[in-house]
């Protein structure tokens, strides 16, 4: 039994990890200094979710992937220039903040509403994907609320592997403590999966896929609705960079034997 899945991938954008980030106090709470100037990338774990979704859709004829993103649309357009070349999808853009200081429940409500608005949505074929945590808020608390709002009680977080069985079941490996995976078998869609890194490498850029995607991405960006986020739930007392600075001892030109002896003694706690 092959199911034509409907896969909605929730993915925000985050500052490029190589950028230096400084918090500033804004009128609506904390923000990043020069946030709109920072180069952005698709949230790394959500990007893995997209690659896994594209891979699953490729294996099941008739499947379709939507990328649902709550981000400032000007920044999202920049990010899409690269992401569009990675995998076929249809973009659903919601124009709103991508800040890590936005409330996860408010973000989840906007994402769930966008998924519910997909024309012809069939819950018996629906898989909701996303990253299990973002590289901004890093809470791992958004996808669960998306699932709750969509009435999905089969939820998995820290997913590294999904195998669709011939009977329509889904065999899922989730990260748990101690470097282990919990193995679960879900009867089938609807289900929600918050992905960790998965098993797939980042796909190479494919300009043909990019051109096909861009035909739907640009109209989606143009008609992106502004997000109506609920009231900020948190009252921030302050946001600061860690101040801890270590007095580093640099050991140069020392014989290898001496270095090894020192490290061995340190490991042994001598």
């Amino acid at each position: 039994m092959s199911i034509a899945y409907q896969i909605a991938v929730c993915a925000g954008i985050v500052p490029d990890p190589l950028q230096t980030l400084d918090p500033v106090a804004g009128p609506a709470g904390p923000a990043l200094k020069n946030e709109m100037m920072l180069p952005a990338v698709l949230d790394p774990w959500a990007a893995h979710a997209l690659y896994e979704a594209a891979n699953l859709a490729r294996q099941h004829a008739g499947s379709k992937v939507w990328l649902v993103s709550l981000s400032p649309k000007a920044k999202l357009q920049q990010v899409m220039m690269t992401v569009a070349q990675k995998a076929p999808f249809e973009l659903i853009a919601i124009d709103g903040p991508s800040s890590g200081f936005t409330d996860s429940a408010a973000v989840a409500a906007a994402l769930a509403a966008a998924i519910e608005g997909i024309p012809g949505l069939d819950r018996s074929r629906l898989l909701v994907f996303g990253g299990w945590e973002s590289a901004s808020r890093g809470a791992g608390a958004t996808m669960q609320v998306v699932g709750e709002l969509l009435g999905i009680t089969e939820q998995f977080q820290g997913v590294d592997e999904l195998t669709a069985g011939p009977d329509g079941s889904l065999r899922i490996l989730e990260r748990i403590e101690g470097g282990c995976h919990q193995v679960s078998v879900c009867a089938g869609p609807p289900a929600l999966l918050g992905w960790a890194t998965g098993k797939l490498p980042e796909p190479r850029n494919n300009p043909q896929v990019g051109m096909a995607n861009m035909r739907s991405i640009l109209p989606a960006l143009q008609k992106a609705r502004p997000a109506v986020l609920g009231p900020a739930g948190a009252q921030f007392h302050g946001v600061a960079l860690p101040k801890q600075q270590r007095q580093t001892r640099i050991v140069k030109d020392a014989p290898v034997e001496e270095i090894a002896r020192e490290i061995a003694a340190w490991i042994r706690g001598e």
Partner: protein
Amino acid sequence: MKMEPVLVLLHTEADGALAKAALEVLAAAVAGRAPVDVGLVGSVVQPAADRVAGCGARRFLAVEGEEFAQPRYATDAAAAEALARASGAPLIFAPASSRWMRVLPGVAHRLGGCADTHVTSLSRQDGKPVITRWYYRQRMEAALERAARPWVILLESGCYEAWSGAPGTARLERLPVTAAPRTRVEGVQAPQSGQQTIRPDAALLFVAGAGWTKNQADGKPHVAEAEKLILEFLDRTQCSLGSSKSLVDLSGEGQAVLGFLSHLNQVGQTGSTPRHPKGLATCCHGEEPHVVGWRFVTERRAVNLDANCGWARGKADVVYVADAFAVMAKLNELLRS
């Protein structure tokens, strides 16, 4: 000032006991001097309740049964929701275990409340609870409070001393909970024998960077030799093995890689955030994302050919400017003896 009551939500492990992280959360709740309820989920929870019977909790609530033995969203969410409603406490503390992290944000939504995860400390300001947690993958720390209740707070492990009072006999109030999950838990898949990943219980974290696979002084990579050196070191020290993202990603780019590394070894922006007492980094470059992965490692040393890399200044306690191949070979020799 009247303190808000706290429900401490705990689950038992596969052996029926409570994890250290669960006892840490209990200690944090008890230290706040607020009325405390304990809610337990598991197959059979009486032994676990007895273990913490002396904590001074006013109630011990339980959801137990075979369907609650294993972590699963549908059953765990139903159990946690029932416990929270029965207690009615406006504050709910829980360990940030994979089991509770999976369900409690969803449960907070069901209760009409809010949730904060990866919390590293709890304090009070004007009688109101204030938490601290990290944003942007441990790059900045925020202190915040919330007005919404119930407020579910998932505490990171290692932030509080574990509760260690005397055991006793707890009077359990068992709650009837039914759930009809469509998911069957088949078990746990451990890493292959000989493979090491990020193990929180290890005394040392060894991080291998991309430099191990780069061309060496003779103009050629020595990946096989690197594998041998690292595996012997792991075997001798039983340490946890981490790696930088760049090294794990090399496999996707068709380059020579260390065969035993996977994304499970990754530390930093898209990996884990280890909290080992000691960390030794080798052949790593000092970009901020890598440092991020080491934020909570207590003692840090690095072996690196570049004394001026980001690691060298202010991040590590000691940086040895040396060839990691030579140092590790000698170190293994010393550890053998």
